């Protein structure tokens, strides 16, 4: 294929395109899902193909195919060229890319145990043991466990001379218990909802999750929720744990900092962003305790890689520094608007999708307090844990998130459990009310394998390094 790729790029150069790149991807996926006493699904998938992205006549064209042959690559190149020419009839300004360092390189994510070499029996046995523990009460109607593994080999080449090969291995797993009693349904997940926790690591990551050791607690908490009182509606202090903070950062920090959203190109589906260009380096996004970074170099993060899908080397950039909004996630095209270079966040779900600006590892940097001390320091409030529902407006201002479980905090002590806790706010007001972030001992990179964006929809693997944090004056509950 390397020869086909080079020949096709040479062909496109002869056609005098402004720019072209080719991505060829081969991906293996394995998914195991266990529900109650049954292995509900064991599935594997092999997917391969290539996509060609072209700027011609100052406009973009993209075409892709799953047929790997020289003739098909030529056909697809011509199709992309035809599409770019069609796009150009609405052109206002010709597409220009910010300059980039050109690499010829190879990158491999680190892992110890290839999950595809782990016997299926071993995986099934672990998951069934978990669901057996989860099911040890008749009120647990659904006990679930799942594991997902991805092995991706990706080649990127461009008319600028880039040639990058990457190998990325990803693993993830989670369990969940759904308790039902009459008209009441409650659930509890571990290590996180949305399928569990994920990383660019091998099966060693699964072993470290200790799914079995947490199953009994998950079951008991799901049962406890059935008889727990509803969370009262009030304005109070909340301490948000790491798994829920992941969602909070994802929705109210990550998405609004994507520069393509800011510039309006995601308006029709996902919406825009309140972080308009006039806010850069001016907006007090959060309190001085709030420091947010995008770091694609974090070892093991699900948003880590060697190079993005424009061949830009992975990097760490600041988004919010001491509460001030200082940076966007950018691409080569969008960075030019700011007279900057891309900070390497363009990724495509697969060979058949065009790269978009996607979150990498978007992190709330650790603060300086201890979690237990933070509880002890809170006279009155709530501890909110693990995401259950999520909704935010199309500029990422008004959000309403529900959590699986909440606990009362009174006079510095964790008290009774509440069910159906929902909290709501306006993003900058909320983050300006952050008065404490826990230290690195409580900081963890949570992998999120299902971030949706774009048309056609692209599901991306991203992550968030976060620690629990406290927020004052938060509206909890909506009167039902």
């Amino acid at each position: 294929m390397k020869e086909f790729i080079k020949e096709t790029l040479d062909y496109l150069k002869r056609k005098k395109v402004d720019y072209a790149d080719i991505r060829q991807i081969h991906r293996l996926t394995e998914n195991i899902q266990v529900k109650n006493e049954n292995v509900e699904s064991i599935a594997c998938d092999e997917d391969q193909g290539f996509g060609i992205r072209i700027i011609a006549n100052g406009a973009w064209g993209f075409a892709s195919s799953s047929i790997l042959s020289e003739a098909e690559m030529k056909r697809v190149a011509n199709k992309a060229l035809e599409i770019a020419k069609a796009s150009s009839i609405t052109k206002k300004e010709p597409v220009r890319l910010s300059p980039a360092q050109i690499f010829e390189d190879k990158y491999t994510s680190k892992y110890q145990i290839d999950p595809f070499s782990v016997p299926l029996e071993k995986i099934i046995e672990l998951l069934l043991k978990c669901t057996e523990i989860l099911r040890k009460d008749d009120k647990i109607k659904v006990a679930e466990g799942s594991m997902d593994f991805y092995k991706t080999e990706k080649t990127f080449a461009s008319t600028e001379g880039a040639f990058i090969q990457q190998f990325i291995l990803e693993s993830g797993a989670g369990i969940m218990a759904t308790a039902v009693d009459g008209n009441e349904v409650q659930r509890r997940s571990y290590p996180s909802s949305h399928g569990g926790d994920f990383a660019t690591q091998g099966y060693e990551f699964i072993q470290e999750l200790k799914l079995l050791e947490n199953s009994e607690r998950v079951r008991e908490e799901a049962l406890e929720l059935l008889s727990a009182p509803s969370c009262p509606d009030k304005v109070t202090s909340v301490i948000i744990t790491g798994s829920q903070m992941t969602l909070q950062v994802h929705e109210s920090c990550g998405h609004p900092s994507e520069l393509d959203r800011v510039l309006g190109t995601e308006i029709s589906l996902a919406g825009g962003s309140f972080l308009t260009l006039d806010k850069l380096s001016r907006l007090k996004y959060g309190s001085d305790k709030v420091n947010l970074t995008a770091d694609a170099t974090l070892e093991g993060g699900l948003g880590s890689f060697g190079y993005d899908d424009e061949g830009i080397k992975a990097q760490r950039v600041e988004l919010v520094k001491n509460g001030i909004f200082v940076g966007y996630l950018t691409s080569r095209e969008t960075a030019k608007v700011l007279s900057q270079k891309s900070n390497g966040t363009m990724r495509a779900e697969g060979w058949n999708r065009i790269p978009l600006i996607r979150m990498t590892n978007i992190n709330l940097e650790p603060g300086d307090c201890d979690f237990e001390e933070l509880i002890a320091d809170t006279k009155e409030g709530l501890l909110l844990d693990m995401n259950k529902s999520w909704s935010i407006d199309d500029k990422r201002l008004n959000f309403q998130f529900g959590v699986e479980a909440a606990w009362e905090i009174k006079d510095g002590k964790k008290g009774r459990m509440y069910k159906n806790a929902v909290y709501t706010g306006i993003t900058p007001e909320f983050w300006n009310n952050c008065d404490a972030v826990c230290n690195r001992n409580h900081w963890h990179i949570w992998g999120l394998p299902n971030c949706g964006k774009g048309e056609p929809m692209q599901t991306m693997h991203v992550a968030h390094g976060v620690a629990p944090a406290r927020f004052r004056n938060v509206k909890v509950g909506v009167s039902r």
Partner: protein
Amino acid sequence: MIGKEKILETLNSVLKKSEADQSEALLISGENGLTRYANSYIHQNVSEHNSKVVFRVALGKKIGICSTNSLKKEDLLKTLSSAKEIASHQRENPDFPGFPSKQKLVKLKTTFKKTADFSPKQRAEIVKKICDKTSTHNLTAAGSFSTSQSEIAVLNTNGLSAYQPFTSASINLVVMSDDSSGYAETMSRDVTQIDFNELAETAIRKCLDSKNPKEIEPGGYDVILEPAAVGNLLEWLSIIGLGAKQYQEGTSFLCGRMGKKVMGDNFTLLDDGIDESGIPFPFDFEGVSKKRVVLVEKGVAKNLVYDSQTAYKDKVKSTGHSLPPPSTEGPIPLNLFVKAGDSSLKKMIEFLEKGLLVTRFHYINGYLDTKNALMTGMTRDGTFWIENGKIKHGVKNLRFTESMLKAFSNISQISRKRNIAVPWWGDIGAIVTPAMLIKDFKFTGKTEF
């Protein structure tokens, strides 16, 4: 397009080599083109040619699934063999009834040549007309316009053989000013049936009419939901409780309520995959013919949709609503129809003394309390205040948090005219729904625009 003959021949020849007790092949193949535009120019324009073959094989009641997007015979045989290998490691699934037997399928016209032949240039020209029209009002346009031709085939070793080619065209547009926006959408199997000019005019009018939006306080309001907004709610209703799996697992809002009144007398909801006034398709992803299923009749919960496995568990027949493997979500109705009423959008507006008109919702979530079908979401792209029977002005967007059992019990008027609401599941189904006037719909929050 690969074509019926070649697909059936290829898959048959591969399945014949299967050493499993039962085997099934699902093929989904197509050429999809999508043009995205924003700020009144095309910023993404893509084409995809892809095929996927999913093999499910059974060793007794042990199921293995393996898929590939290579159509080379040696790759298909390797994938089939991998599925068998996986099955050998599986546990027995007591709810597996075997793969479906031969089906009698309804003949449907789902392919239109002009859609199949629609070129990137033609899509770009349509988008240019929309952008030019929008520019004359000093507004900008954003959206996407896709056209595709695809084919789905399901074969199994029990004699089932199903094949259907189909085309699809879908467009959405958001027209924007500095402080307002308007929206329109539709889809059709036949691109020539789409009135692009009317869609542009609708979105432009909504954008202009909602300029200088005023803030209103959250609370209970009588609200007119246009078809796109009703469709947004029904998408979630479909996921959280109209399928047999959620019912069997005890999380559906219909649990304990089957045969009982759950919504208003004037609300009837059904699923019909072969009604050509929607986006029809004759069979599901197991090859089972789609049945018309009345889900809620005059407010009474009547039926659920089933796939083979959930049907076996409940000792009924599949209604033809399976999703493609390896999905474990269970069956979902993908061709929803809400029964029309006798009102109109105009009459509803004239009737309303005070209330809101919502064009569409954004980012709904239905997992708050599935037993009560409690959902939250935001309004967007055209929310209006109505007073004394007239649209007075646009309003800044609001958050609702409401039970759909309550909302659909409080419908006071339903329009005769129904539109296609474009759901997230794309070109294998759609939601055909009228507009509705709902009393006391609860808005619980507001935003800044």
